[in-house]
């Protein structure tokens, strides 16, 4: 995978875990809880160390990877006046929010499930700052501003200083560079403090393998740091080196994205246990064209071509790939899953179903071996495939492809399935044209 978003709560937990090591001279309280309903919040308040939930005014907001929660009126910080939210207010508010669907201004909609609850931090606008870091091109870029919150987003160009840090730069030069680029709007009495924090923030971002890290705003009251709002993505390829440094942060699905279907989950699970690669995304379960494509690049060109030639992208039912030499058993499981999905709904317009078994010329995958798994799956699903008037188009090359094509043709003929098979002499995506023209 690559860069994956984590919850605000987990991001703050990571800060807290490493605070002493990275942010010496500063204090951070880490008073946050993550709950899924009002009772959970009430239960939290009974626990030792969480007395503040009963004692302090609270702020509650969804923690589900989307931003602009203020604009979406999803931050509870007042009932009558700012800073008067009690534990009971927050619990009730959360229960109300989870009882119905929510539609964001962006159009994303779904049911809210996770909330972060923290103490209300009274502060003035001039105590708010902005800091974030990410990778642009080959460099890391640190963004610094003397203004935080919504202010900074309206007027980004004038208000934010960008510090471009080359990947190979040493710590002394990094410190020098940050100092030279500190925003002029930072008041003199806070300047040194801000520089020190920015430098520490960058090292934390770098060493913990964040791909993106933003605090907006960060509130600086003396040496007390308050992380009011945080967005973070981790480079999950670094996970193997990070041990428990990431505090077991989970990688939730984005809000409004439907949860994966059981079939997609099953394929993802098989993928995680295999040395081969198995991927499946259902785009439209009612779609008429189903694909079973070997190879990441090939799966993209088949999807491109189907969208181009069918004239209606809704025809494309799924996207996915199998590659890296899956076993016969793994291929059969993959094929079973796709064929089962394909034969659940009749095409609303009564058209034939099309199954594209495509692939480029393999480098080392044994084509006959992977086709054996597909053939076994045909045997299970032949009757259902016929009910849906399935036409099968095969195109593949690579080690042992002649035998693979011969075997799959013979099996389909024996089972009474419609099939056309092609080898490397036919252009990789030309079977899409053939299938759609017939």
């Amino acid at each position: 995978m690559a860069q994956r978003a984590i919850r605000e709560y987990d991001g703050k937990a990571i800060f807290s875990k490493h605070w002493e090591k990275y942010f010496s001279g500063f204090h951070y309280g880490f008073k946050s809880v993550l709950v899924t309903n009002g009772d959970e919040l009430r239960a939290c308040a009974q626990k030792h160390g969480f007395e503040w939930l009963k004692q302090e005014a609270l702020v509650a907001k969804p923690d589900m990877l989307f931003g602009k929660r203020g604009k979406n009126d999803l931050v509870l910080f007042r009932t009558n006046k700012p800073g008067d939210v009690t534990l009971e207010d927050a619990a009730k508010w959360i229960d109300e929010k989870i009882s119905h669907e929510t539609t964001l201004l962006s159009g994303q909609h779904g049911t809210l499930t996770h909330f972060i609850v923290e103490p209300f931090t009274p502060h003035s606008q001039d105590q708010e700052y902005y800091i974030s870091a990410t990778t642009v091109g080959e460099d890391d870029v640190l963004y610094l501003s003397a203004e935080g919150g919504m202010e900074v987003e309206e007027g980004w160009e004038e208000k934010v200083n960008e510090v471009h840090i080359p990947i190979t730069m040493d710590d002394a030069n990094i410190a020098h560079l940050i100092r030279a680029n500190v925003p002029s709007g930072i008041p003199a009495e806070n300047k040194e403090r801000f520089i020190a924090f920015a430098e520490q923030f960058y090292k934390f971002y770098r060493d913990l393998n964040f791909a993106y890290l933003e605090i907006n705003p960060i509130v600086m009251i003396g040496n007390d740091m308050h992380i009011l709002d945080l967005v973070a993505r981790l480079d999950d390829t670094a996970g193997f080196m990070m041990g428990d440094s990431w505090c077991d942060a989970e990688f939730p699905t984005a809000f409004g994205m439907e949860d994966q279907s059981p079939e997609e989950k099953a394929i993802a699970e098989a993928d995680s246990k295999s040395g081969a690669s198995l991927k499946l995304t259902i785009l439209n379960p009612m779609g008429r064209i189903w694909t079973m494509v070997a190879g990441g690049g090939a799966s993209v060109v088949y999807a491109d071509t189907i969208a181009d030639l069918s004239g209606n992208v809704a025809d494309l039912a799924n996207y996915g790939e199998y590659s890296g030499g899956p076993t016969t058993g793994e291929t059969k499981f993959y094929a079973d899953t796709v064929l089962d999905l394909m034969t659940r709904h009749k095409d609303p317009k009564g058209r034939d179903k099309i199954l594209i078994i495509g692939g480029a010329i393999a480098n080392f995958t044994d084509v006959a071996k992977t086709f054996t798994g597909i053939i076994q799956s045909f045997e299970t699903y032949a009757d259902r495939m016929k009910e849906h008037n399935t036409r099968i188009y095969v195109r593949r090359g690579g080690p042992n492809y002649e035998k693979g094509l011969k075997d799959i043709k013979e099996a389909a003929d024996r089972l009474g399935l419609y099939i056309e098979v092609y080898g490397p002499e036919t252009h990789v995506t030309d079977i899409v044209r053939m299938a759609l023209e017939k």
Partner: protein
Amino acid sequence: MGALFTKDTQAIFWNNNASAIQRMLDYDYVINRTKPSVAAIVAPTSGNKFEKFFYGPDEIMVPVYRNTKDAAAAFPNADVLLNFASFRTAYDVTMEALSLKGQFKSIMVTAEGIPERMARKMNQAARDAGVIVIGPATVGGIAPGAFKIANVGGTIENIINSKLHRAGSCGLVTRSGGLFNELSNIISINADGIAEGVAIGGDRFVGSVFIDNLLRMESNPEVKYMVLLGEVGGTEEYKVIEAVKSGKITKPIIAWCIGTIAKHFSSGVQFGHAGASANADAETAAAKNEAMAAAGIYVPTSFNDLPGKIAEVYGKLRAEGVIGEIAEPELRAVPKVRRKKEFICTISDDRGDEATYAGYPISAVATPDTGFGIGDVISLLWFKKRYPKWATDYLETVIKTVADHGPAVSGAHNAKVTARAGKDVISSLVTGLLTIGPRFGGAIDDAAKYFKYANDRGMSPAEFIDYMKKEGKTISGIGHRIKSVRNPDLRVSGLKKYAAEYFPSTPLLDFALEVEKLTTSKKDNLILNVDGTIGILMVDMWRALGYSEDEIDGFIEAGALNAFFVVGRSIGFIGHILDEKRLGMPMYRHPTDDILYNVELADEI
């Protein structure tokens, strides 16, 4: 700049990926390379010194090293590293390779999912060092007819079908490895094949990008036009557009970005590689295809029309005379059935007219006029090369010195007893030889081993003596029953005199003599004895002959020093056996009055 690989390019293959290496060697054989493209394998955990692979119908041995440094030192001309380490170690392997300044011109990294920060550091370090990184997350690249990386091109049949066995005129750059093969095939069907091709890799951060490869191809006269297969996401294609606009690239480019499907799905679906997702409108496949077309790059209407576009451009270049006819080279066929050899022999060969010793026919070493002595024959058959005269003379000196030490030593005694029991020469000799071991004759091995150990680790003579005391070991090679400082062993004096005169240098002997000064100061007879001198000078000889310390350790471990004693002393044993036969002495029975019997009677009978 110019061509990425030539027909002489050799690689060091990091990780013993046997099937990929075999595919490279099969390719080499088919295209008539003179040297195999894999010079050496690096496998840190392997215990093997080499791996066998087929080269055509025969087998060859590819040496195996524990680390890249040693492999590079042995093959200074191998300028490609094929880094097949996993995503956990690929970074370290690349960084180690980059630290070997001047060794590698290109490094191919196959691992997918190297942490992004490490990939960026690695790629930057390579750029700073002027080394081309292909990958990470790639199948590699190929210069048809010259050099093929690992699994690129797939099977030999496909390679020939796709005309990857000889240079065509297209330069191919793709992101995807799977589609690289496909594109090679398309180009072979619609044009005359490729001259050079690279799959740059699917990770977000890759070493060499499209523009790096296209600029090199622009400078390679073999390449007449380029095919670029890009992907949704990133802005690398715009660098190519800039190069075309500014005239840095003048050769025709045919290009297409895959991933046009992505525009139909607002978010969430990851189409293709980790590097493939559009963060801005300009990064979409459609925008890039449009921009490339606007810059004068040949862009088809869809991926399905790419073959037609290639045929069109190729046809035009043929008509203009830019591309000529390509002669099809003679190819060798790799046999379908090949049998692995059970035994390997690297010292002599009895096939052909006359048997050879390390390549020398026997007649060329046997008679006196050849100038070869027994020392030469030993150096040929034991060490696979002819040693210089000072060294073969030393070997002969050793054999002469150890040939016999009288009838009373245990080995000779055993041989005599066996001969008197009426046994034949072989049985009697073997009885004597079987006595050679840790107490009899073994001092040569141990002296060489321990003195070398101390010397390699920079111990002072005093530290060495301390070390041996702590280990609870007497120092092999030191001490004699009767000889002493005042009554020196003339055999030792002779060896030392010879070494002083003829050896280029004797560092280990010098060290041993310092040790001797300390030991003899304690006790007069703790001198460096003849076994010690022989073993130690053998190490000095090998050092002077240019062997590495590891190789010398290997000789000692294999028992080569003992072997000199075995050969030399066999002469003496046989002498004693023949002496017994000549004398016709009866069966020997040891007199009972020379045995202390101390056997208790059984309690009950």
